């Protein structure tokens, strides 16, 4: 290959590479929980941020969150996800070898928080889901958005979060906008 051909090939690769990278699904990156940007829920709806702190305890077990038998999302250690919900009472269940439940009153145009923890169990850890506050969430140090592959019905995908943030005039959150690495 002569010098001219090599130069053209380099230019071609340089032109294509960014497009290929942007076409790949965005991978969640670890963020400081204190600065994670949560979009406002759609008008007339509420939303819940489910999160689980990182740590050694139960790290091999995911808190799988269900509503009415439908999986909303898995929730590994150091992860979070957002689910938009109609105002009213919603009951969520988390399952491993045992099941725990939590009901929350979703209010329109508001964001609520719930945390999951894996506690001691017989064969595997048992999940414990409970109400939390935004202060609890912000104190969780670093968190990552749950990967899209692990989300079920209702959990906001990274692109949906980015779009909601853009619509509200807030810059896209790193977890939603970061290119594949």
């Amino acid at each position, binding site marked *: 290959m002569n010098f001219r051909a090599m130069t053209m090939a380099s230019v071609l690769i340089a032109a294509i590479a960014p497009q290929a990278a942007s076409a790949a699904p965005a991978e969640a990156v670890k963020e400081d929980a204190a600065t994670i940007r949560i979009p406002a829920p759609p008008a007339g709806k509420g939303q819940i941020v489910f999160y689980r702190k990182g740590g050694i305890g139960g790290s091999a077990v995911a808190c799988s969150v269900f509503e009415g038998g439908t999986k909303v999302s898995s929730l590994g250690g150091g992860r979070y996800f957002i689910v938009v919900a109609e105002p009213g009472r919603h009951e969520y269940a988390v399952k491993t070898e*045992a099941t725990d439940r*939590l*009901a929350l009153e979703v209010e*329109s145009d508001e*964001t609520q928080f719930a945390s999951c923890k894996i506690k*001691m169990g017989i064969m595997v850890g048992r999940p414990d889901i409970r109400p939390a506050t*935004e*202060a609890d969430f912000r104190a969780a140090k670093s968190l990552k958005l749950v990967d899209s592959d692990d989300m079920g019905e209702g959990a906001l995908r990274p692109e949906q979060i980015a779009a909601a943030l853009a619509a509200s005039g807030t810059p896209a959150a790193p977890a939603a906008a970061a290119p594949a690495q």
Partner: protein
Amino acid sequence: MPKNYCGWLAGTFVLLAPPAFAIDPAPPVPASVPAQPAAIPTAPNPAPRADGDIRIPALTEVRLEILSDLGSKISKTGELFPIRLAKPIVIDGAERVPAGAEGQGEVVWAKKSGGSGASGELVLAARWLLVDGRHLRLRSMHLSPVGEDKYKTVETINIATAATVPAVALIGFFITGKQTLVARGTVAGARTAEEFTLGGGSGEQQVKTGDGKTPEPNQAEGIIK
């Protein structure tokens, strides 16, 4: 279910568990009002009405007093409890609804503390106040206290006993977190869920919810489903 395991283990390992760990006599923890969630909408300024009626805008802040003891151990999901307006509702500088108006709240979720260090949980919601003989619907109370958990205690015991007598780690099942308690007299904030016209009890008024929709008839009347 945790209770089944605990019952089975209590029968099997009762001799292993020192009395100090059999039951944690932790006292209930008084509730603290958690921080308000993000993105709480605010009440719009009341627009003057040509007909002279006074209206309370949707999302007006109210202070409510809880009139009964509530707790993760003593309350049940779905239970109703009495509330009272702790501070008058003031519109345009004038007191429109005096303190003392009575109403009702609901226990949305109550769960006793459990084994392995799990704490008690309580999620409460304000439903309505009786104003002008009608129900003024409420929302956004956000009183969801959680007792102190004992996860760290359980984990410490597990780590400490893993290399010596692993069976002793099972006492972690009998360590419970603390219950949570909202004492009678606790004052919490909430908001009105809909626009409410004072003196307009003829049933002909237009009522709108906080999200701008016209509510179902039973919602406008404040009936709990």
